[in-house]
């Protein structure tokens, strides 16, 4: 009986969800700490140092503080939408965890449409951002929300085209199959341009600097979450970092061989550690980029997408298709 329970799909799902919830929150807190540490050391200062060893508990304390704060509703704001938006922004990000291949047997639900599911749901966040920006009844928030929509639409296309080149090579939308086919050679060596396009578009998708124009601090104060306080803001924050983890995890499994070691050499390290190591390395690069560059302007961002990224990704896709056909 118990074996039946353990093996049942439902048990697996519920356990998975619980693990995902815990992991997502802790991971986001860790990432915030990591971001502050990376930023600090790049800027020749130590970052958080006071709470816990090397400030490790700082973000946990911050989260507790955020939970204790009052949720302020601006005058004439759309009450329902205003409170719905932070929830809406966080839920789709969690769904992405369902199909992420942490290890050969560590996928909560190995769907044959896994890649599609992740991107379908990650697109959903833009709706929440729009809702939050609109409901705030604040011009800065609205401007940020509008920018966010335009940006996401523009960068979704090269992102998906880049993913498409990989999918064409594997003939599958399932993460485990994509990862398995990178056993000997990672796709980053086969598809370097697609990988670069994916990483740039993913940065834009997650609204990270230098593409953080929806929340452009020096222009729009805080962009779409200007009016959010307490845990409302906390959820946006959490979603941003979880989203960052997801895009990097997807990049890891699409281009950097997922749980596989380099050229099939795993050094006896379990696959899940390979996966996490590579994901965090990618996250580190995103942070490094963020703390180096100034922000691009809105129209330049769009130009870059439509004039450089999309033609490039289309060309890459066509070349991939032709080469595959010839082989």
């Amino acid at each position, binding site marked *: 009986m118990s074996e039946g329970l353990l093996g049942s799909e439902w048990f697996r799902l519920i356990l998975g969800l619980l693990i995902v919830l815990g992991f997502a929150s802790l991971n986001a807190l860790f990432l915030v700490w990591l971001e502050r540490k990376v930023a600090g050391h790049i800027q020749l200062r130590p970052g958080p140092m006071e709470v816990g060893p090397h400030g490790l508990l700082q973000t946990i304390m911050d989260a507790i503080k955020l939970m204790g704060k009052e949720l302020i509703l601006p005058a004439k704001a759309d009450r329902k939408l205003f409170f719905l938006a932070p929830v809406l922004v966080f839920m789709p990000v969690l769904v992405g965890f369902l199909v992420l291949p942490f290890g050969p047997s560590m996928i909560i639900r190995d769907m044959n449409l896994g890649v599609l599911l992740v991107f379908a749901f990650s697109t959903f966040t833009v709706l929440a951002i729009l809702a939050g920006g609109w409901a705030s009844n604040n011009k800065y928030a609205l401007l940020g929300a509008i920018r966010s929509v335009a940006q996401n639409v523009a960068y979704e296309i090269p992102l998906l085209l880049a993913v498409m080149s990989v999918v064409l090579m594997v003939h599958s939308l399932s993460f485990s199959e994509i990862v398995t086919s990178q056993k000997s050679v990672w796709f980053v060596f086969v598809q370097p341009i697609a990988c670069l396009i994916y990483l740039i578009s993913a940065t834009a998708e997650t609204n990270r600097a230098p593409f953080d124009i929806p929340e452009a*601090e020096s222009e*729009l104060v805080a962009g779409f979450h200007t009016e959010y306080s307490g845990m409302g803001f906390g959820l946006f924050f959490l979603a941003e970092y979880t989203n960052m983890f997801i895009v990097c995890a997807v990049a890891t499994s699409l281009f950097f061989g997922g749980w596989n070691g380099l050229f099939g050499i795993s050094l006896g390290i379990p696959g899940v550690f390979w996966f996490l190591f590579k994901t965090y390395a990618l996250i580190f690069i995103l942070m490094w980029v963020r703390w180096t560059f100034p*922000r*691009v*302007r809105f129209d330049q961002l769009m130009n870059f997408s439509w004039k450089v990224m999309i033609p490039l990704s289309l060309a890459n896709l066509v070349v991939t298709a032709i080469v595959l056909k010839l082989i």
Partner: protein
Amino acid sequence: MAEQDNTQEYRRIYTLNLGPQHPSTHGVLRILLDLDGEYIVKADPVIGYGHRGHEKMGENRQYKQFLPNASRLDYLSGMLFNHGFVLAVEKLVGIEVPERAKYIRVIASELNRISSHLLWFGTYIMDLGGFTPFLYAFDDREQILDILDSVSGSRLTYSYCRFGGVTRDVDYKFIDMTRAFLKRMETRWADYDDLVTKNIIFIHRTRGVGIIDEELARQYGVTGPNLRACGVGFDVRRSEPYEVYDRLDFEVPTGSSGDALDRYYVRFKEMQQSCRIIDQALDQLPGGDFLTKKVPQKLAPPKGEVYAAFESARGLSAFYLVSDGSPGPYRCHIRVPSFGNLNVLSEVLPGTLVADAISILGSIDVVIPEIDR
């Protein structure tokens, strides 16, 4: 039908209140922006939030009592304003300044100019969204503050110059620290070039943005690096050399197109020129007194007036003092460069994006409390 169109047009344009509390208005500035989408239709800067009545204070104080006020006008170049005020009073009363004091003042002023420009550099990149150069610039600026602290005892509002000299002589430690700073900066310029000047994103954010041409600058009395960026090599240190600037060899860097990128270049090169000036001044630094003994405790200048111009970090500044023979001025007017530099915004901003507005505002380098006085 026509009426309906009008109402639609009316709704298209909305007002955004940029400031007084906003992350990048450099002090308490408010700009009323009429926007069409993200494009600016009309801009109206509103100032005066930091008005302290320095000019009225000047009338009610003795000349030397106004000394601490001078550095508080433009707190980023406190030494320069302090220096400028002392120049004005010395001119009015006719006080001879020892050579050594002149050199010390020039060194201190140029150090302050670099620190002001470094702060501008950092905050400007921060306005554009890059946070890290800000802290690198502050790291360098900290060296200057340490140097000035070691001689004036203060880090921001120096109050270092006195009528007829300076409060405290410089020692070998000061000279060594300054030399070490100059040496350090030689390697830093290359880093700034790699990190910012050559950066494609930065260039795209600033090239062709917020063009102030010569005619516009003349109309609004724009001075300083903003004027030099449009190709006019006008610098008070050159045109009316005060102290020992005529004995020092330095260039007045100019740009060509007057856009934000040129303003950046000009300020960047100015920092390097200031380093050159300091280097020469240290070489030429003579011995002797640092403060003349002949200044009476109670100044009694002759009746008359003086208009003493000097080059602050932001441009042509001047103290206009009218004396009625009493120990305090009858009228004390301060010409501040940021006034004209900000005034021009109402003509530069329309037609640009909100993001550009921030870029332009940062690039003209205003200090609002200086305007508010």
